[in-house]
């Protein structure tokens, strides 16, 4: 066990996933409270063709290049969702399902095209971006995650008060001179950036869990925004560390799924035992029932 904990690869990978999960836990809390969790899911899936396209165009698997491709497709996916809901009768959940599946389908088609094509070399790493394979993370990958997460957290801290008012009461925030459009773009920009840099670690399919699950745990344990953020960040960080350990120790378990399993365990335990969880609630209800 000590061997793994002190090994260089483990430290690099754990550092990357932990920082990513902490930042995602915080920004994901905002999405969850705003009722936008599924936008993260659709955007997460939609970034995958961006990875393959960037590889095809640039002919390299360099992390930054692929992340930029993912970022671009994430933005395109978001605006596609906006355009569909604003200009057609399709509701938001329909638009999300459409964009999620069609973009991801495009990514899969492109990947199978390049994999069987002699013109493209070094395609074997691309499928790692579907489920995530943190064990293959390089130092440069971790640096990118550190830079993106650090910048995201900095922006979040700088605009914390504004964001808080905007999320709770957008009409009031507008009335006291906060730019709601800026707030919305900031939340979105941070979310897509974290998804783009986190794909290699967690994968396009599962990354939404990193955004949502910590927020759900936080909300179950506290009803103060700041505390929810702290709990979400801690839950994300601890799960990422434990998941990375499990994945490194048990040879063939991909890191993404391992982290998600730990997170899901946290959600399950919280659902059952937290102050606002199911068990306590039903006990509380019974007590109230007895009194009346």
């Amino acid at each position, binding site marked *: 066990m000590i061997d793994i904990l002190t090994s260089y690869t483990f430290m690099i990978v754990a550092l990357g996933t932990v920082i990513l999960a902490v930042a995602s836990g915080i920004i994901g809390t905002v999405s969850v409270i*705003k009722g936008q969790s599924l936008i993260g899911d659709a955007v997460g899936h939609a970034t995958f063709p961006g990875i393959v396209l960037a590889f095809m165009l640039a002919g390299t698997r360099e992390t930054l290049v692929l992340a930029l491709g993912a970022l671009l497709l994430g933005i395109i996916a978001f605006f596609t969702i906006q355009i569909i809901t604003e200009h057609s009768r399709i509701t938001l959940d329909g638009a999300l399902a459409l964009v999620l599946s069609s973009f991801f389908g495009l990514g899969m088609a492109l990947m199978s095209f390049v994999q069987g094509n002699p013109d493209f070399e070094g395609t074997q790493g691309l499928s790692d971006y579907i489920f995530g394979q943190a064990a293959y993370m390089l130092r440069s990958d971790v640096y990118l995650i550190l830079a993106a997460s650090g910048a995201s957290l900095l922006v979040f801290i700088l605009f914390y008060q504004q964001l808080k008012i905007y999320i709770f009461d*957008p009409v009031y925030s*507008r009335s*006291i001179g906060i730019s709601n459009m800026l707030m919305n773009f900031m939340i979105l920009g941070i979310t897509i950036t974290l998804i783009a840099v986190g794909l290699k670690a967690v994968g396009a399919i599962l990354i939404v869990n990193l955004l949502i699950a910590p927020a759900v745990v936080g*909300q179950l344990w506290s009803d*103060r925004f700041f505390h929810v953020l702290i709990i979400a960040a801690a839950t994300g960080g601890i799960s990422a560390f434990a998941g990375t350990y499990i994945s490194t120790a048990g040879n063939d378990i991909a890191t993404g799924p391992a982290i998600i399993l730990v997170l899901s365990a946290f959600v399950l335990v919280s659902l059952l035992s937290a102050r606002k969880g199911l068990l306590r609630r039903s006990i509380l209800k019974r007590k109230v029932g007895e009194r009346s």
Partner: protein
Amino acid sequence: METLITIKDLNVAYQEKPALWHVNMSIPANSRTAIVGPNGAGKSTLIKSIMTLIKPISGKIDIDGKDVRHALKRIAYVPQKGEVNWDFPATVLDVVLMGRYVHKGWFKRPNRQDSEIALDALKTMKMEAFRNRQISELSGGQRQRVFLARAIAQNAEIYIMDEPLQGIDITTEKLIIDVMKALQQEGKTFVVVHHQLDTVEDYFDHAVILNKTVIAQGPVEAIWNESNIEKAYYEMSGHHD
């Protein structure tokens, strides 16, 4: 009385359906002004236009002769309850502290003085015992008190409220009116969308009767009569041009 808010030829439409047309009005400083009119008369649209939350087709809204966009900090807005995200995990004190935002520097972090101001505002609204309560656990009347406390903490000169008496208990209604009258003594101005016709004379000293356009405006005792009310409520859209 001196004019505080001036609206000149305001026209607003939603998807080409006119909501307000040729609205000209002036609201006197230090008044308690009611905006009254039937459903769909454009009352909320009017105050949202004042708050620059809606972009009008044309028209000019001034406060003290200056464009309203430069005077937003002087206004405290009390929203309708449906406009707020009730899933947001916030305590009563958190919400009232938001009123201090306009007075803060770069990081906007509230300090102890802000907390004292917020607590005083809660005391005024008889809600200090609820300060650590989750906002979503409150009743409609209690929530309305918290929003008014936030407006008081903002220490604005002008209070704009969208149906603050909608769906609240009678104690809260009395308290809101008492606070409104007390703050008027301190020089504040109130613009309130109001839906009960029978209390206009008791609660307000100035009124604007609205149905897409201004039917009547002025001191309550001068314009609050059957003929004006009938014009707004029963002669549906008698105004064509």
